[in-house]
């Protein structure tokens, strides 16, 4: 029976990729371990190894084809005795090994291989994918962007990189440090190209020692440099949280204003896909409770760029919470020489009159989808993207609630002491008389993130929960 070789998933969040190159041609004999093709994901170029032995009967996907979905057959492998003629048009009913080729991805740069924290070889489960890969997302006009500005479709990943590159060109004291930021081009490819442009002095690969290198970053900042400390994910920043809070956030106060830590701590935060409890925590609420920090958590690529540039220029320590799933999504980003957004200002994603939804970061993906569904039911949502969690733009929220009288918050983090409960408290204290219904807070469930696909789906908020909450506060 000929074997279908399938497009492998090479990262927890990969849903499609480019088949950039075939290294074997039809008629070639392969044995397990042979590299047969190169696949480019949004993060890296990976080699695909054969798992089975046989002869390449047919290449089904041409080299250079983009957006090849995971699990699509890309070639047919003939077993001993089979000939190309024997290949029937009909495909095997069931793919034999959906991730056969992905089991041992020989990363072009080997740092990812075998490193548990990156979990490169877990296929994304397309069934419960939280967002489609890289769709273009339409966003309401931002008053901070001059009308008529040319917009360029950009991924969040590129926007972040562009922000860093622009600021590094502008200011010699800005540098990036972290694990795999330089030669590997970023574990999530966010720092791609920076080493080539700025060199190893300003793009610094560190050992896997978060506590130590975070402290080194803070020390450098105390002496006046402007470090961007990348954490491969914020989960690992728990090792470094003492330096972030006790050293970076408190020094300005403890020194009576003499010195502080002008720096950015950035990296992906929150759940990616199927990486389990230790790699999936959302730290939005934790950091946003600390005086002395600013905390930014963008959703769109434009906000990612404009706010990261602002964060790098900010004289305070800024926690910049990104999201792995959003990295590949494209949004319009204004083509401007120097696009900087104000930290501490929410963006009204869509105006509406019936109910206010407040969200931020990846929470916005649930909110926007819920908003679209609710529109069908005639409920006009005003959606606010907080963008910054500290200082929090509560006036924008209060103004909206005064208009709509109803509020639902949406986030992925744990429900106790969440950003949503904080908003609810403050709105209750400051706009109680305007509320027509109790505030509902949608958050992740009160459990560590499970691995199993069905449980993970249950642990995260859903669009349905947001829709239901909005209907509840609207008494519908």
């Amino acid at each position, binding site marked *: 029976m000929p074997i279908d070789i399938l497009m492998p998933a090479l990262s927890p969040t990969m849903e499609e990729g480019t088949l950039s190159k075939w290294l074997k041609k039809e008629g070639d004999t392969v044995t397990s371990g042979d590299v047969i093709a190169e696949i480019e994901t949004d993060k890296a170029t990976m080699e695909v190894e054969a798992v089975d032995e046989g002869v390449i009967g047919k290449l089904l996907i041409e080299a250079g084809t983009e957006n090849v979905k995971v699990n699509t057959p890309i070639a047919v492998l003939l077993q001993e005795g089979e000939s190309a003629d024997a290949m029937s048009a009909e495909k095997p009913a069931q793919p034999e090994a959906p991730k056969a080729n992905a089991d041992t991805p020989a990363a072009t740069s080997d740092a990812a291989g075998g490193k548990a924290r990156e979990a490169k070889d877990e296929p994304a489960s397309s069934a419960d994918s939280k967002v489609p890969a890289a769709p273009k997302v339409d966003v309401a006009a931002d008053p901070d962007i001059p009308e008529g500005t040319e917009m360029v479709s950009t991924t969040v990943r590129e926007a972040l990189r562009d922000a860093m590159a622009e600021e590094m060109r502008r200011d010699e004291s800005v540098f990036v440090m972290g694990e795999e930021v330089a030669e590997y081009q970023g574990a999530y490819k966010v720092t791609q190209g920076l080493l080539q442009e700025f060199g190893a002095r300003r793009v610094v690969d560190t050992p896997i020692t978060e506590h130590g290198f975070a402290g080194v970053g803070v020390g450098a900042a105390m*002496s006046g440099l402007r470090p961007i400390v990348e954490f491969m994910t914020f989960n690992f920043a728990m090792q470094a949280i003492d330096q972030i809070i006790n050293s970076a956030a408190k020094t300005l106060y403890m020194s*009576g204003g003499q*010195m502080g830590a002008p720096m950015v701590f950035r990296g992906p935060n929150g759940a990616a896909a199927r990486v389990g409890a230790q790699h999936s925590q959302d730290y939005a609420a934790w950091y946003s409770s600390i005086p002395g920090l600013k905390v930014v958590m963008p959703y769109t690529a434009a906000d990612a760029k404009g706010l990261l540039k602002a964060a790098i220029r900010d004289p305070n320590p800024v926690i910049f919470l990104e999201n792995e799933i959003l990295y590949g999504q494209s949004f319009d980003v204004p083509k401007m020489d120097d696009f900087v957004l104000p930290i501490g200002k929410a963006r009204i994603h869509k105006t509406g009159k019936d109910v206010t939804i407040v969200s931020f970061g990846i929470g916005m993906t649930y909110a926007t989808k819920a908003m679209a569904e609710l529109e069908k039911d005639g409920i006009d949502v005003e959606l606010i993207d907080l963008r910054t969690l500290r200082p929090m733009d509560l006036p924008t929220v209060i103004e909206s609630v005064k208009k709509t009288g109803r509020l639902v918050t949406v986030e992925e983090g744990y429900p106790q002491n969440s950003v949503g409960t904080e908003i609810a408290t403050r709105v209750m204290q400051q706009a109680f008389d305007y509320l027509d219904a109790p505030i509902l807070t949608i958050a992740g469930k009160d459990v560590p993130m499970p691995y199993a696909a069905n449980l993970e789906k249950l642990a995260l908020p859903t669009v349905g929960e947001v829709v239901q909450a909005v209907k509840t506060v609207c008494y519908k």
Partner: protein
Amino acid sequence: MAPNKTASASGRKSAAKPARKDFNGGTYAEFDKDQEIKAYRDMLLIRRFEEKAGQLYGMGFIGGFCHLYIGQEAVVVGMQMSLKEGDQVITGYRDHGHMLATGMSARGVMAELTGRRGGYSKGKGGSMHMFSKEKQFYGGHGIVGAQVSLGTGLAFANKYRGNDSVSTAYFGDGAANQGQVYESFNMAQLWKLPIVYVIENNRYAMGTSVSRASAQTDFSQRGASFGIPGFQVDGMDVRAVKAAGDEAVEHCRSGKGPVILEMLTYRYRGHSMSDPAKYRSKDEVQKMRSEHDPIEQVKIRLMDKGWATEEQLKAMDKDVRDIVSDSADFAQSDPEPDTSELYTDILL
């Protein structure tokens, strides 16, 4: 540079490493008259300042934690004599001596101890958290070991800027067991950062003696696996400290990377003001005071060599006492910070 058998940053290990209890085992670089007098006066200032701080604590003017440096004065004074302008200093919570040694004013430090507006941090930092941009003093850190990574960051900045400044990070035998210390050692040697790690081994991490907390009690060798040269130094002899400091600083300044200096020293007082120090004998303390006191050693040399008369020493002592009394008066009369300061200096 003066010959020094105690520590040699140029060699892998010093030939004459004084044993732990043999403080006079090495031959130390001799000081000239001016150096002896400076060392004497600087150490005396710290001693008298700390005695006064202890007194003010007892009177309730100083609150919270107050960790005195009495007994360890030679370490910071000797090291400071090896540094030049632009070199950075950072330390842990037993920091009053370091601040005075860098030239920070006694008034500013004492007023911070009493939580007054004229303190270095406007009264908002306290004993463990003081800084001076002007004197390149980067704190004053209350989390054990944190200053080691931060100090490594200061050294990183020096290298990044391409200047020839050296960072000096002080920490104790207790902090020397913290994980981030080794993360920092690794990066400092990997990147050849200009930093002197000064381990002030005063034998006790709070109440736990070195032998009860440390599997390897030779702290000078704690960087061995990274290839960082390390030396034990008689931290009760200011000349030995200065000699070792000179070599270590020169090693750093010439781009060769970090050096570890283990200063064998002793604190006379408890860990903090509230520590009755029941974990060691009175005899142990008394023996150290009478046989190895860093200030007495200099005093005897000054008199033996005829570089100072009893009267001159008394006059110096009075000068120092005047500075300390003035700082204490200021620290008690200076007003507390304005209540508006509660909400300042949180963000710029």
